[in-house]
């Protein structure tokens, strides 16, 4: 009897546990192919060239719409209809969030621009899944202001009337303020009651005519959910999520046949005082990939093909991570006299602000470099020689003869070859050793044969058969020059050089409150009164913030965007008015 009950019980438990496991299995497998989505909250929608655009970038899982912990790198670019990319930014993403600022060069022409953001993983799902936002940038000296916009469109077509943003009350202490007066904003008790934690970005800027405030995070997520099913089908599997660092991808192509080359060994080194190397083999489509940690941040990358046949014309092509296939077509903004007047006024304000400059951007010193690992080929050399310790020698042949006892350099068929004595077997390897100049693998000693002691700082020799992964070097000679001679040498006939840009720094709007709390001789006509991309809500902290109005009167929008750990988006806005003393007393 007991066994019968136990059996029935176990059957029940089995089916109860089976359902969530199957559910989790599907969700887990979906998670493996689920897309990400990005959203950018900018401080404003209209800028004058020469101003700084502040932004906060959110990376979310497109299914759960929670902050994504998958991608650690995001890409942001600014383009217009004529240029594929005007500004390119690589951002380090921490727990699905990144923020910073971009200086908009004075030379930008007036017109509609598009901000595009994405992650490497999102490339698998096509460019239609990338976040795109249209903004206006006007040149400071352009009074004609031909915005080149689609004149047939009456209003913003994409987001209006899709859904109302999540209603979170923004309670200001007043509705109307004087110039240079303190404004206190509270996010209301309801938000803290409902949410334990949320990551928000807050912007207070002068209201722009005809531009609706419906372009919000909540609307974007709502829209994303509608087209979610289409965007969950990857159209490619070529891109990995950048979970530990940037993944750089390229192809090896035979220049003559234009066909891709499989199983080619591509080597990556960076000029340094440490011998460093990474390698990858091309797949059947000729594609290779490297995961770059912070060691490569801001460094020159040198790619070469190891043992490329001399008779072939193989070449390396590195994929530009900012290259988009689809073009930008402006359609958000319309020609409007009110907008034109607003821009003309903003041009004058920027002119005044440039005359009385103060530090707008505060760069954060938070270290972005957290994963600095140099891929060393060896840890300790068997022999390190500093030629300066010896008598001056004219070339490398003499140096090898006089001060490198295990190295032999000889002339063979009018070219020089190097050989190393294997200290284990006490005989020459009779193969070319691994030869490095300034940390980079080069394939011919003839390139450094004229280097005398005046050019060389240090020589490391390893006179045993060295193994690096599955590469074998019959000994290693590493030459470190005094003035980075690798810059003047082509390491290999297939070598190409790529500059790896540094990660964009995190930055904030400089809010020096004391400057605005009391009258100052210098004018203050800021149209952006407050920007905080790092506004956190938690159960203990009062969700409020303060800022000061400027000398510029007008209507200002307080816009709050953000997300909770549960994936609930927050979009809210409120309006305040700044009047001068005369207007205020008349009221």
């Amino acid at each position, binding site marked *: 009897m007991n066994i019968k009950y136990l059996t029935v019980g176990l059957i029940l438990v089995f089916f109860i546990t089976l359902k969530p496991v199957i559910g989790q299995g599907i969700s887990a497998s979906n998670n493996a192919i689920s897309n990400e989505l990005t959203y950018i909250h900018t401080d404003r929608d209209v800028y004058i060239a020469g101003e700084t655009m502040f932004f906060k970038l959110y990376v979310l899982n497109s299914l759960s719409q929670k902050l994504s912990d998958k991608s650690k790198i995001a890409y942001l670019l600014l383009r217009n209809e004529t240029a594929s990319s005007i500004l390119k930014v690589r951002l380090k993403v921490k727990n699905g969030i990144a923020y910073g600022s971009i200086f908009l060069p004075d030379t930008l022409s007036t017109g509609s621009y598009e901000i595009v953001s994405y992650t490497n993983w999102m490339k698998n799902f096509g460019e239609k899944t990338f976040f795109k936002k249209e903004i206006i940038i006007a040149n400071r000296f352009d009074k004609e202001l031909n915005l080149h916009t689609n004149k047939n469109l009456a209003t913003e077509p994409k987001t209006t009337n899709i859904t109302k943003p999540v209603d979170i009350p923004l309670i200001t202490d007043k509705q109307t303020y004087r110039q240079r007066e303190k404004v206190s904003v509270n996010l209301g008790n309801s938000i803290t009651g409902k949410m334990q934690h949320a990551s928000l970005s807050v912007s207070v800027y002068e209201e722009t005519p005809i531009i609706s405030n419906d372009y919000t995070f909540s609307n974007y997520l709502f829209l994303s959910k509608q087209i979610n099913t289409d965007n969950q089908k990857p159209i490619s599997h070529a891109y990995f999520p950048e979970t530990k660092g940037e993944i750089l991808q390229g192809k090896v192509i035979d220049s003559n046949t234009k066909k891709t080359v499989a199983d080619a060994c591509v080597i990556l080194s960076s000029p340094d005082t440490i011998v460093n190397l990474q390698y990858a083999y091309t797949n059947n489509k000729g594609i290779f990939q490297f995961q770059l940690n912070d060691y490569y941040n801001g460094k020159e990358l040198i790619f070469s093909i190891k043992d490329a046949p001399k008779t072939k014309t193989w070449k390396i092509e590195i994929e530009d991570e900012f290259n988009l296939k689809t073009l930008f077509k402006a359609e958000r903004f319309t020609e409007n006299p009110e907008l034109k007047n607003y821009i003309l006024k903003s041009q004058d304000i920027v002119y005044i602000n440039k005359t009385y400059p103060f530090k707008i951007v505060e760069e954060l010193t938070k270290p972005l470099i957290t994963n600095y690992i140099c891929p060393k080929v060896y840890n300790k050399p068997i022999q390190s020689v500093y030629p300066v310790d010896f008598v001056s020698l004219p070339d490398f042949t003499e140096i090898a003869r006089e001060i490198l006892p295990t190295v032999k350099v000889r002339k063979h068929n009018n070219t020089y070859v190097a050989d190393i004595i294997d200290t284990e077997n006490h005989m020459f390897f009779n193969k070319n050793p691994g030869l490095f100049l300034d940390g980079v693998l080069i394939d011919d000693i003839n390139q450094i044969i004229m280097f005398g002691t005046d050019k060389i700082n240090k020589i490391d020799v*390893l006179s045993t058969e060295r193994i690096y992964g599955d590469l*074998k070097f019959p000994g290693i000679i590493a030459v470190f020059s005094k003035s980075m001679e690798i810059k003047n040498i082509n390491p290999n006939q297939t070598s190409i050089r790529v500059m790896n840009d540094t990660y964009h720094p995190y930055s904030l709007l400089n809010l020096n409150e004391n400057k605005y709390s009391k009258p100052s001789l210098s004018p203050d006509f800021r149209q952006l009164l407050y920007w905080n991309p790092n506004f956190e809500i938690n159960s203990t902290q009062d969700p409020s913030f303060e800022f000061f109005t400027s000398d510029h009167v007008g209507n200002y929008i307080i816009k709050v965007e953000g997300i909770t750990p549960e994936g609930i988006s927050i979009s809210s806005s409120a309006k305040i008015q700044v009047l001068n003393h005369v207007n205020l007393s008349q009221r």
Partner: protein
Amino acid sequence: MKIVMFLMLLLTGNSILYSQKSFSDQLILDSIFEPKLTGEAFIAKVGMIGRQFFNDEWAESDIKLTTGEKVSNKLLKYNGYLDEVVWLMPEFFKQVKLDKFAIDEFVFKNYFGKSIRFKRINIKQMFISDSTDIFAEVAIESNLSLYIFRKIRIEGTVTKDSKGANYSFDQLESAPVYYLKLRNNNFSTLQRLNRRALLHLFPEQKTAIRKLLRQNFQRLKTESDLVEVVNLLNKSIFH
């Protein structure tokens, strides 16, 4: 009863299925961009009698590099005579002596049914003026830690006759050295496996330790006795 057993088996299967899926993505990525091992070609020394290696068979192992990166499922042997880790490159059947300074730890995942962890520690050896880095087996890691240096040394030479000629061979013997590490990160060498040697290392706690060992009837004659003693000391004195 058979049905009960079958259902219990299915239930176990469910939980395994659940736990395995979530890590698969990262594992694939880690294996594609796995850090490279560095070292030099290795040929084992001949003309010796006895075991040079701690493990005679290649053991599937994980390695933690000094960079913090991890390398998984490599075939390793620990050479106690040279105090070096040797890696078998399966593609070329080549043996590689790995760079000691690139390795922090390595774990034999299944050494006679248990996992054994070796860690690179910096100690001052007898008769050597400078401190050196050695690989030592981690027996206990707590307030009082026990590391065992699986040293193999030449105990003498043996002459053997082969086809009328005499050949001299080095006789290898296992000579483990026991290191105790206190909270202040200082290593002390336990010269012999006996109570007196242990009490000599802890003059301040001498009485307490003697009392504790007596109360627990704890002997200190073998390696397993030492492990029990260190566990006992962690529970009662160094907690």
